[in-house]
């Protein structure tokens, strides 16, 4: 094929019309040769159709995998679902809301046995609690920092520094979570144990949220800190993206009204990007909810609910990681799978919502482009 094309190009360049003479000299043998060649190729309709189906198949693989995971989780959790029903996500048998509330508030009260593989009683309550608390702690710490980073990178950073800083921020997202976990165990946890926790206990201990003087340095708060570091790059890079999507004319409009730089960022940029920023935060939440390795290494893995954020806990992801290999009993296994199913549904919904919001700002909503 290539050879034919080359030879025709040669024909064309040799016999091409001399400049100025125009196309009026009648016969154009080189043009008709090209035409013959092009016409002889056919329409390739068959190859096109094969290609199309191949690509459709590739795309369907994604849906197939998601569907298979969902099916497996639903199937594997049948046993637990039939036995406990909705009470799996509430308080365990023999306990009332009031008694659990008392156990949460009073550090000296006996903790209910939420998760009892020996007797076959399972309640997801402490894991739901641990997942929510550690994730929201993470958001509380990561969101202001991430927005600050994004504002600095898009609006204030000197040009030479912008690309390297943005690059490093995004590299943080590429570090495997077990590395974060290791770092937390060797650096963060001792720091929490020796400096931060005693300080929090002394200053804010009266609120009850920092009362437990946990001698290990592990717990919800440490998990929240490591999660905050892990979701920081996601939130800040997406926030940066939606801020960059705000048209320059919006910044000029605010500046022309006599705004300072901070007012320009607040009214002209953050306000216009707010839906996308909410999307970025929810995406960070999605990652925090499902994060397993680093959290398992620092949260302390005790199946209890305490008011104090310094106490040990457990999340849905960490309990699965901890117990799955040693769960021999069918009911125990099924309960773990049901936890997995709940986590799967929640993270899928949260991520879908977040993607939708980010998409609405960066690609959709053409009216904003004005």
């Amino acid at each position, binding site marked *: 094929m290539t050879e034919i094309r080359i030879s025709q190009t040669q024909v064309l360049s040799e016999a091409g019309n001399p400049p100025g003479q125009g196309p009026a000299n009648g016969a154009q043998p080189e043009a008709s040769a090209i035409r013959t060649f092009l016409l002889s190729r056919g329409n390739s309709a068959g190859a096109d159709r094969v290609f199309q189906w191949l690509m459709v198949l590739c795309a369907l693989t994604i849906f197939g995998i998601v569907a298979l995971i969902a099916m497996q989780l639903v199937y594997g959790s049948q046993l637990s679902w039939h036995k406990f029903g909705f009470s799996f996500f509430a308080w365990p048998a023999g306990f009332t809301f009031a008694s659990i509330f008392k156990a949460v508030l009073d550090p000296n009260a006996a903790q209910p046995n939420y998760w009892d593989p020996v007797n076959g009683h399972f309640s997801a309550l402490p894991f739901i609690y641990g997942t929510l608390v550690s994730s929201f702690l993470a958001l509380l710490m990561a969101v202001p920092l991430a927005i600050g980073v994004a504002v600095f990178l898009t609006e204030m950073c000197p040009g030479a520094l912008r690309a390297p800083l943005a690059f490093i921020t995004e590299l943080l997202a590429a570090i495997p979570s077990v590395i974060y976990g290791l770092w937390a165990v060797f650096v963060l946890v001792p720091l929490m144990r020796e400096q931060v926790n005693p300080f929090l206990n002394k200053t804010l201990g009266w609120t009850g949220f920092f009362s437990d003087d946990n001698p290990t340095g592990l717990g919800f708060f440490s998990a929240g800190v490591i999660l905050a570091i892990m979701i920081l790059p996601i939130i800040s890079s997406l926030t940066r993206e939606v801020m960059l999507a705000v*048209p320059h*004319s919006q910044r000029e*409009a605010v500046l022309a*009204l*006599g705004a300072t730089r901070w007012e320009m960022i607040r009214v002209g940029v953050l306000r216009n990007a707010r839906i996308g920023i909410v999307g970025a935060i929810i995406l960070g939440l999605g990652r925090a909810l499902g994060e397993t390795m680093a959290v398992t290494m620092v949260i302390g893995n005790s199946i209890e609910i305490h008011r104090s954020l310094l106490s040990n806990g457990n999340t849905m992801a960490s309990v699965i990681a901890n117990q799955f290999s040693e769960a021999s009993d069918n009911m125990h296994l099924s309960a773990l799978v049901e936890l997995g199913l709940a986590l799967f549904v929640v993270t899928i919904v949260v991520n879908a919502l977040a993607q939708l919001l980010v998409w609405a700002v960066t690609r959709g909503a053409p*009216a*904003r482009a004005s």
Partner: protein
Amino acid sequence: MGVGIEVTNLNAWYGTNHTLQDINLNIPANHATALIGPSGCGKSTFVRCLNRMHETNPIARVTGTVRIGDLDIYNDCKPVEIRRRVGMVFQRPNPFPTMSIYDNVAAGLKLNGYSNHHVLDEIVERSLKNSALWDEVKDDLKKKSGASLSGGQQQRLCIARALAVDPEVLLMDEPASALDPVSTSKIEDLIFQLKSQYTIVIVTHNMQQAARVAEKTGFFLNGRMVEFDSTHKIFTNPSDKRTEDYITGRFG
């Protein structure tokens, strides 16, 4: 009331590109002044130097003197202060999409901490009446977003937003070039009415528009101001050959 603008030896650069060269010009108070010229001649850069928007681009640089009223804007004050006294309307309407019509108009005042609701209501109404938009939007001032209006309405909303801070000078950078003919004629009527109260500088590549709205016209070419005179003289009896070539359509 508006004030006059006195420009002396104004030079501006974008990076190494010398976009404005030795501009000297006196813009009279309470009149409309049009700036015409082919694309890239520096007329937009010139108006952006009048409220120090040019320097918001990190590679831009300006030298020379611009006096607005008694104020030497490059030496006596910060950019923020001068932009509160000089309103600007851009080529493409840029209302704030997340704000209601009311908040769009009040944005300049709210930004500067003005919060007296009765006065704000009055100012919003007056500004929208001044920009000939009041009758079209008065029923959904706080219900509709600024982005829900049509292009022409959006541009009049932007004019109302600029008028709400009661500027002494109103700069308009091709305010009608993105609009349809009906909206364009509304904007022109508006400029005609506003010029008794404000000093208006309007950049346009539409020579008929300059002839219709402005008393004075300046012709820019390749970063220099070729001629500045009464609009009538520029369009009927220009003293420079290049001006004549441009207005008779020989180039540009």
